[in-house]
């Protein structure tokens, strides 16, 4: 099982498309950092709006490494599912396309093991992508912009809020957020791999995964009560942004943030469980379908 896993990782590392994702992330992060270094105050003005009429605030302090990473993740985690699909969507269909699927299944391993190992390898790839994001978006931003307290701009229900987290209370939130993102992106990997079982080439499952993610993300961001209540809870994309929950700091009755607290841990936990549920269902479906798949034709 371990050698099969090592082989899968080796195969992923040898595909040129693997590195497209790393290059894309580096480019996007670099563009963001350049833009904010050149004129970050414009973005800050947009987010602060009327607050500037009532309060004085040192905006240069507010545009710091922690804030930058949050902004980049906010944008990037919408595109990263596409990058994950590039690899996971190729897992089975790539073998079928190259004609190595039959050869692979003649080895003394079960089809279930093959699916589990390919999913594990896709998950490792996803984690590597997130580590690279942490290096470029967080640590590099911390180096370029420095560190200070972090401001979170947020719409909660019909109310807009500005949350401030002190700089000594941020790093653990990022570790937790990246951990959550790994689970969320693993759902995409499981979906792409499930779809790749049905295809003979990689393009189909990759595009299908991207389309599903885009359509579901659009629906998840439509603010209509009927969709909020009846559709959103059943879409996995509604939970992809759950990592932000780690930055929604709990407050006391006076609205003062409580260091080390989370506003709604049960909501984050439930989202995580739902995402794990999705992974379980998609993996089980993949195992069932793959075990019944006719590889002779």
């Amino acid at each position, binding site marked *: 099982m371990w050698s099969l896993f090592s082989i899968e990782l080796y195969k992923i590392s040898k595909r040129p498309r693997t590195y497209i994702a790393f290059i894309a992330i580096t480019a996007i992060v670099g563009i963001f950092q350049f833009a904010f270094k050149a004129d970050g105050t414009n973005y800050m003005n947009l*987010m602060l*709006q*009327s*607050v500037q*009429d*009532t*309060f*004085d*605030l*040192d905006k240069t*302090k*507010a545009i710091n490494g922690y804030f930058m990473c949050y902004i980049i993740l*906010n944008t990037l985690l*919408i595109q990263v599912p596409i990058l994950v699909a590039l690899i996971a969507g190729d897992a089975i269909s790539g073998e079928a396309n190259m004609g190595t699927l039959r050869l692979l299944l003649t080895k003394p391993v079960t089809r279930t093991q093959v699916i589990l190992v390919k999913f594990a390898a896709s998950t490792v790839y996803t984690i590597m992508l997130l580590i690279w994001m942490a290096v470029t978006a967080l640590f590099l931003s911390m180096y370029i912009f420095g560190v*200070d*307290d972090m*401001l979170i*701009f*947020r*719409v*909660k*229900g*019909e*109310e*807009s*809020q*500005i*949350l*401030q987290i*002190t*700089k000594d209370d941020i790093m653990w939130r990022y570790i937790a957020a990246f951990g959550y993102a790994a689970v969320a992106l693993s759902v995409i990997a499981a979906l792409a791999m499930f779809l790749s079982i049905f295809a003979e080439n990689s393009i189909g499952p990759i595009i299908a995964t991207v389309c599903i993610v885009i359509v579901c993300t659009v629906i998840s*961001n439509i*603010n209509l009560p009927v969709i*909020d209540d009846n559709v*959103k809870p059943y879409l996995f994309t*509604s939970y992809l*942004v*759950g*990592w*932000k*929950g780690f930055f*929604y*700091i709990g*407050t006391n009755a*006076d*609205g*003062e*943030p409580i*260091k080390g607290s989370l*506003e*709604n841990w049960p*909501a*984050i936990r439930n*989202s995580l469980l739902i995402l794990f549920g999705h992974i379980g269902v998609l993996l089980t479906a993949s195992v069932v379908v793959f075990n019944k798949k006719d590889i002779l034709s």
Partner: protein
Amino acid sequence: MKNLLFLFFLGFTLPVFAQDINSLVASARKKIDAVNDYEASGRMKTNVTFLKVPVATVSIYFKKPNKLKVKSEKGISFVPKGAVSINMSNILGSDFTVIDGGDDKINGVPVKIARLLPTDENSDVVLSTVYIDPVKNLIMKARTTTRENGTYELEMSYGKFAAFGLPDKIIFSFNTKDYKLPKGVTFDFDDGTKIKASDVKNKKGRAEITFKNYIINKGISDAIFTK
């Protein structure tokens, strides 16, 4: 003899009871005028519905005639723009006409109310109402209505720097504008909590500044106010 004693008693007590509001304001102003500059450290607690910010450690710098700077010692701080009015010389510094507003009580302490109308027609301040403790000559409360920035209200409590008219604690109330981000801009995580905007609109902001210590009349560089 009785009449003579009555007149003698009246001659001593009448100035105390019928202290002219102008002279009372002048006495309070004299105390404040004795401070040319100060540097104070303290803690600022901001209470605004849409702002969830921690208590800030701040330094406050003042220099005559009306330079005031509130600086955060560490981290980011939201300093209310009207905070310049926490300095009483900002209110009593300009020329004004005083109108007697009668008597009142603040926390059980009898106070005199003085309404100050600026003589300068172009002044941003339309009206200031100050509540003065006639015994200690200290301003206990002030309400300032401005043309551009609404109404500010200050409540002061005094301690060891009362001799300079400098408070140990100021509660500063101010108007806040509604803060509303367009939906969909922030891609927020919906945790299922429902909040209606109508519940939180039109609330006043409040900043509570507690001063730890003052360094008075030791000179302050102008550069501090330009940073």
